[in-house]
């Protein structure tokens, strides 16, 4: 039953992805000034939204782990797996944002990169969560979960500060380029393509998140089992 549900959900996700792709490339009308290059938005913006969503999930996992690690160790392990899965999937989506963004910018602005508020914030967000994953890889032993949770909370606090800093910075020195927001005078067909892609990428992200969570839970259980066996031998 559970397997069936997962297969159905995966099939639905694939349908959404195909539909989103079709909408973005074939259905949505050509944008009047940017033409074809504007279609990058249908992948870029939903990925950015997903990245923020999964980083938020990671933060929930970190806080949940610290709150429950003393009283409910079993729950804490689940939260920890959630924090790790959220951070990893978030980094994947954030990488997509950071790769597709400059490709669009090169054609639309004529430059690959600028230290604009949103660009800088996204880049620093990516750096913070990569450092989080590095810590999880480098630090050994059982304390790594606690340390990672603490770093996850620090990283999350940093994000609004980074955003404010960059907004002030750029307000003092207005830059010639603007982020053409997706909601500024968008036609209904464009909006439809946009919404299909949001649904598709979030569904895909949740699928991968669940998979990553499952794998991490399995490895946690294997570790616990090993520790138990070592105790039994003594």
């Amino acid at each position, binding site marked *: 039953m559970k397997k069936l549900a997962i297969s159905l959900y995966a099939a639905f996700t694939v349908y959404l992805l195909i539909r989103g792709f079709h909408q973005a490339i074939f259905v949505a009308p050509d944008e009047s000034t940017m033409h*074809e*290059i504007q279609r*990058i938005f249908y992948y870029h913006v939903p990925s950015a939204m997903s990245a923020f969503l999964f980083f938020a999930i990671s933060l929930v996992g970190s806080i949940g782990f610290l709150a429950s690690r003393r009283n409910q160790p079993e729950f804490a392990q689940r939260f920890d797996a959630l924090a790790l899965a959220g951070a990893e999937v978030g980094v*994947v989506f954030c990488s*997509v944002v950071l790769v597709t963004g400059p490709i*669009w910018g090169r054609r639309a602005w004529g430059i690959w990169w600028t230290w604009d508020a949103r660009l800088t914030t996204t880049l620093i967000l990516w750096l913070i969560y990569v450092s989080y994953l590095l810590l999880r890889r480098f630090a050994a032993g059982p304390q790594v979960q606690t340390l990672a949770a603490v770093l996850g909370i620090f990283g999350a606090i940093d994000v609004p500060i980074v955003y404010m800093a960059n907004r002030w910075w750029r307000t003092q020195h207005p830059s010639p380029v603007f982020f053409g927001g997706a909601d500024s005078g968008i036609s209904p067909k464009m909006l439809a393509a946009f919404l299909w892609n949001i649904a598709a990428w979030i569904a895909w992200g949740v699928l991968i998140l669940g998979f990553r969570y499952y*794998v991490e839970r*399995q490895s946690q259980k*294997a570790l616990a*089992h090993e520790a138990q066996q070592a105790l039994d031998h003594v």
Partner: protein
Amino acid sequence: MKSSTSAVLIALLIAILAAVAYLWGSHGLAQMDINAQLNHKFLVAAYVLAWTIQSGYALWLFLKWQTQKRAAARIARDRR
């Protein structure tokens, strides 16, 4: 899963992505002016790279899962 199977899977993924990039990237270029050609190529690059990152991560996760399952099976066999 054997490491040769993993290598085949990785090669297959790269081949598919490269084929899509080539076929879609060169599709209909003849009717476009130079600006539209560049736009088209950049668009294809963005979409293919997005899929490379996403499917690459998914494949990595799948291989990790397979390795884990194999390790678990080995432990279960040793116990018996």
